[in-house]
């Protein structure tokens, strides 16, 4: 049965938008953890940690997100490691692996932007590794990490549209379903695009004011 596109169809699209936001939030969270580990690894004096983090970052950044999603959703379950790969789990895992590499690069850049003298000063004060990062490096590195981090989060929201192809009902997939239901792809996808635009544009404007309000005073 073909339905006409009407206001009722906005509801599933908005539900998809909520799932997209949740998906990106958790992916950024886990990706951020991976990114911090990689960033610390890439800037550490340990050669092995250096090489491994560099390898991860370069490999993941050299492969399309679509291939990462396929690898996680179709290929990993073939290893038979006894994890239940639901669509949601695969989507979060793939996006986290992807976000980890980009966040790692951002964290590395942030840590390296802190002048070398600050590291030496902390060492001279006899601070432990943890104290050095907690009290000296992180507060200064954050101003170099947060703006590109928010930029990446916005990119991640757009990139997360690719998980729709493994059938996860995100914003894009919801639009596809509505489009198939109503045979009106123009209206469906324009609404989807408008929702993405509101989320991403709103977020970037909010980030802009946030940065101007808080981050400059820190510098």
């Amino acid at each position, binding site marked *: 049965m073909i339905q006409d596109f009407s206001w009722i169809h906005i509801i599933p699209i908005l539900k998809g938008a909520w799932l997209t936001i949740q998906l990106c939030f958790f992916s950024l969270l886990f990706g951020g953890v991976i990114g911090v580990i990689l960033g610390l690894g890439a800037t550490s004096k340990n050669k092995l940690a250096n090489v491994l983090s560099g390898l991860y970052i370069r*490999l993941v950044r*050299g*492969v*399309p*997100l*679509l*291939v990462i999603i*396929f*690898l996680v959703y*179709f*290929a990993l379950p*073939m*290893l*038979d490691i006894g994890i239940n790969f639901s669509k949601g789990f695969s989507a979060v895992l793939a996006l986290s692996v992807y976000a980890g590499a980009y966040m790692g690069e951002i964290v590395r850049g942030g840590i390296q932007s802190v002048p070398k003298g600050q590291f030496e000063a902390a060492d001279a004060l006899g601070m432990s590794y943890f104290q050095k990062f907690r009290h000296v490096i992180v507060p200064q590195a954050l101003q170099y990490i947060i703006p590109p981090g928010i930029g990446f989060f*916005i990119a991640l929201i*757009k*990139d997360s*549209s*690719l998980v*729709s*192809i493994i059938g996860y009902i995100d914003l*894009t997939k919801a*639009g*596809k379903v509505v*489009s198939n239901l109503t*045979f*009106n*792809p*123009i209206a469906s*996808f*324009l609404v*989807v*695009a408008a929702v*993405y*635009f509101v989320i*991403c*544009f709103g977020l*970037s404007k909010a980030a802009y004011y946030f940065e101007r309000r808080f981050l400059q005073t820190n510098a």
Partner: protein
Amino acid sequence: MNLVFHDIIPYIPQLLSGLAVSLYVTVICMLAGTVLGLFVALCKSSKNVILRFLGNAYIELIRNTPLLVQLYILFFGLGQLGIDISPLWSALIGITINNGAYTAEIFRAGLSSVPKGLHEAGSALGMNKAQIFRHVILAPAFRTAFPALTNQLILLFLFSSVASIISLEELTYQIMNVETQTSRTLEITLIAAVLYYGCSSIFVYLSNAMAKKVFKW
């Protein structure tokens, strides 16, 4: 678990033809997108309010919506309007429009990095605006923009894989095709990763070599 690659050998030509389509789309869209981006960047930095608004609107609209949705609108939307468009043309047009918004921002940064003194020096020599742009501004702006353009080229190559979803027979499409025919999921996805990674490394190498040759001053 053991990896079996010999099932995939007969499909190598298919994979290579997919890679060729991916590279073709990347090169065409990068060239067209660079021209488009330069044009939009000029619109955005012009004194005309309407041109500036249009440039801004284009950049914000494209940069704040996913490429996949843009391709859907183009591919299925034009179909709905009764215009029969092939996946290749949708991909070429859609990715070029998408890429143009990103290169426009890159060029805007490049153009604004050119010192004002160069503009003034140009007009002191009696050049008109077009001459100043062509002979004085373009080269240093391009040099500043070049590393970011290289980055954009690699992102473009990786994101051309999205066109497989609108059934363009590029590398990712062929990968999925071979996967369904051989069921060697893990092996074929690993090959895909290697091919994409290898090509993007070659791109980085080539563009670094080119930057060294071209930007000598």
